[in-house]
């Protein structure tokens, strides 16, 4: 019996001792880095033949084989094909131009996905000088996509990262589905370099707005392509007759958003509230211009300030077709994200203000 008592005492002692311990959280071991340099990692994959040939032609391959740390944004062959760039056109591209383009895909230092701030359009300097913009989706009540552990959803300059954080001895690599356009010095230079906006450029020039696009900005331009102008019968000659004597300037200022900068993918990464949300007191997605409010109502549209309505109706008066001046427009899926140092240009599907609405009576 005495022996049992000893066992009981021992058990109780064990319980008390074990329960009295303070437990510490376990420490997880960190990831193991690849021992190969970025160039070798890239060469081990057949999807990057065009990018590798561009690296070799410009001499950047040696950079990626060295010991200095870099972040590499590698477009796949399919991305080159989508951009209309073939092996031939790469071989025939001017060397300086190609060097700028390839250097835009290499960032000094290591910027793995866990180091990216949870921001939309976070600028990171490239080897070529201009900034590359990373967007990490913002979780929130409007967020419809979650960055899952091990599967980061990241956008770069409006393109998708299809694989992130491929680790190498001298840095980290992202696979992207888009060849990044090197930004033009100004939005004006950008517009002048894109033939599909020749009528829009002409219109801005006639209205004395083109030079303002050389300013620091940033600007987000919702630009009308030549097709949109032609839909309304505005060819070069007809457009020449539209002047600031007979038409209000806001006919063409309405698509110029100052101090704004966004890629189309930003609408996924930092979504606007849904219509139902801002009806009940949330902040409505309205961008204020001197004469108009640009509203987001699944599509974009321009509404004039209706002072009478504002005084009589405390509720939001700025959405709904009676107030729309022109078309509700969508940003193009293909013709978008054209980048300049001081802004970005997107094509839109219609005219937000009709010339008849802007005619001075």
């Amino acid at each position, binding site marked *: 019996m005495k022996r049992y008592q000893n066992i009981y005492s021992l058990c109780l002692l064990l319980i008390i001792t074990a329960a009295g311990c303070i437990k510490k959280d376990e420490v997880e071991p960190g990831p193991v880095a690849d021992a190969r340099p970025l160039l070798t990692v890239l060469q081990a994959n057949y999807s990057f033949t065009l990018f590798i040939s561009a690296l070799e032609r410009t001499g950047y391959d040696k950079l990626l084989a060295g010991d200095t740390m870099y972040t590499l944004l590698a477009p796949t062959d399919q991305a080159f094909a989508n951009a209309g760039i073939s092996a031939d056109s790469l071989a025939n591209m001017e060397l300086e131009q190609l060097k700028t383009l390839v250097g835009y895909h290499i960032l000094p230092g290591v910027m793995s996905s866990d*180091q990216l701030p949870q921001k939309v359009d976070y600028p990171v300097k490239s080897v070529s000088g201009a900034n590359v913009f990373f967007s990490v989706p*913002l979780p929130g009540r409007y967020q419809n996509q979650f960055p899952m552990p091990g599967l980061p959803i990241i956008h770069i300059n409006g393109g998708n990262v299809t694989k992130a954080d491929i680790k190498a001895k001298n840095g980290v690599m992202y696979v992207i589905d888009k060849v990044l356009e090197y930004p033009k010095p100004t939005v004006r230079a950008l517009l002048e370099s894109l033939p599909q906006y020749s009528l829009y450029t002409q219109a801005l020039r006639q209205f004395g707005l083109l030079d303002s696009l050389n300013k620091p900005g940033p600007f987000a331009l919702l630009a009308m392509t030549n097709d949109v102008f032609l839909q309304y019968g505005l060819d070069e000659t007809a457009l020449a007759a539209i002047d600031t004597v007979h038409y209000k300037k806001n006919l063409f200022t309405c698509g110029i958003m100052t101090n704004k900068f966004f890629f189309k993918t930003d609408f996924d990464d930092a979504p*606007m509230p849904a219509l139902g949300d801002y009806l009940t007191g949330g902040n409505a997605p309205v961008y204020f211009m001197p004469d108009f409010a640009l509203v987001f109502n699944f599509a974009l549209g321009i509404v004039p300030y209706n002072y009478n309505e504002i005084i009589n109706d405390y509720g939001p008066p700025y959405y709904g077709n009676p107030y729309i001046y022109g078309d509700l427009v969508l940003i193009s899926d293909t013709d978008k994200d054209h980048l300049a140092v001081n802004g970005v240009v997107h094509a839109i599907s219609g005219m937000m203000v009709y010339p008849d609405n802007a005619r001075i009576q």
Partner: protein
Amino acid sequence: MKRYFLYGASLLLIIMTGCKKYEEAPPISNAAYMRVFNDLAFTVDVWQSGQSAPFLTFIMDPHMDGAGIPDTGAVVGDFLGTRQLYSLSYPINEANSSIGTSPDQQIINTVNYEYPGNAHVLTAPAINGFDLSAWAQVPEGSHRILFVTRPQDNVPFKQLSAANRSSILLDTVVNFEKGEVYTLEVVSRDLDNKKYGLYVRKEAFIHQSFETNKLYVGFVNLSGKRPLSSQYDFVHFYPDNTGIYYTYNIPDDQATIGFENDPKFNPLPGYDNAYYTTLRTTMDTVIPYMALPLLPQSAFFRQDTLRTYADKSAFLAGLPSSKFGTLPYVKFTLADPTKVSIPFTLSCIGDPNTFNTYDPANSSALFYTPNLNLIVNTGNAYHVYSTLNIMEMIYDRVYMMQIQRGFNEVPEN
């Protein structure tokens, strides 16, 4: 017998060793008391690209790593989300882990709505009859205080990348005096130009004397510069001269008969749209409190049954509903008395237990607060306690901090 004992002992061993124990914090001599809120309520959408969501880490007396970037500190209040519309003098979420969906964000991650909140730290004792367990003890003296914008995920601050840890929103020094109670709030000074500041209020209510049978309410405007989004009243913004008026509504049971969902109220004589004050300044640190009568306990019951709070449809309908319940309530009207405009009304009709579940961005909750009379079930009976209420008007909303008075005694009204 022996076998059963061993089974029991093994079970006990498993159960007891499964518990997690926290180290006891060492006592702080010469303590001051501090509570921290994040008042930034903006959402980030595509037109505010480049901006981080207002999700913060609060660090007091930071420790820097080799690169000069903060990695920890004497006090770290991590995952500091936008505060809830209603807060008490003791943390609402003290007992739970705060992991789940927050109505404002609907994200599955850790959110603390204040510091200390549910942190396991020493808190303030009861002072001047107020339970102040939502204020943490801090050593007196000057302390450097940092607020860092952090990603909305579950990674603790120390494990974040250097790029994420270096996104410092505010870096300042606050002097804490022994025995004083401080409320710190991160506020926006200019939303459009992304300028922020720290509002520090040394709470005077611990030194003031208050009458027993009164409710106290004070207003302060903590809005920054008028944002562009509030032009033409598209988004509400409190005017530079905000006149505050109040009405104390008492249910009229006779008139309500037959209108169960639409109770009738009469104003208490002398409290019908009465003028309180006009707020001409913002960021005031001294709050004058107005006194309202604490009605007798019988006013809160009808045939021995507790009267009702507002129906949730009042908050969710999108438009003010008539389902205001049957409890007496106070309505505040905030408007510029010199201009013709539709006033902002604030009806104190909500149930404090459920009020924070209404999403401020997707309901009418911004036009309501919980009732000023705090009903607490003690000793198996409902008692109505007097409260001190600090109403903080910030851009489009009012944050209510309700502090129960005489919490350790049964009210005599």
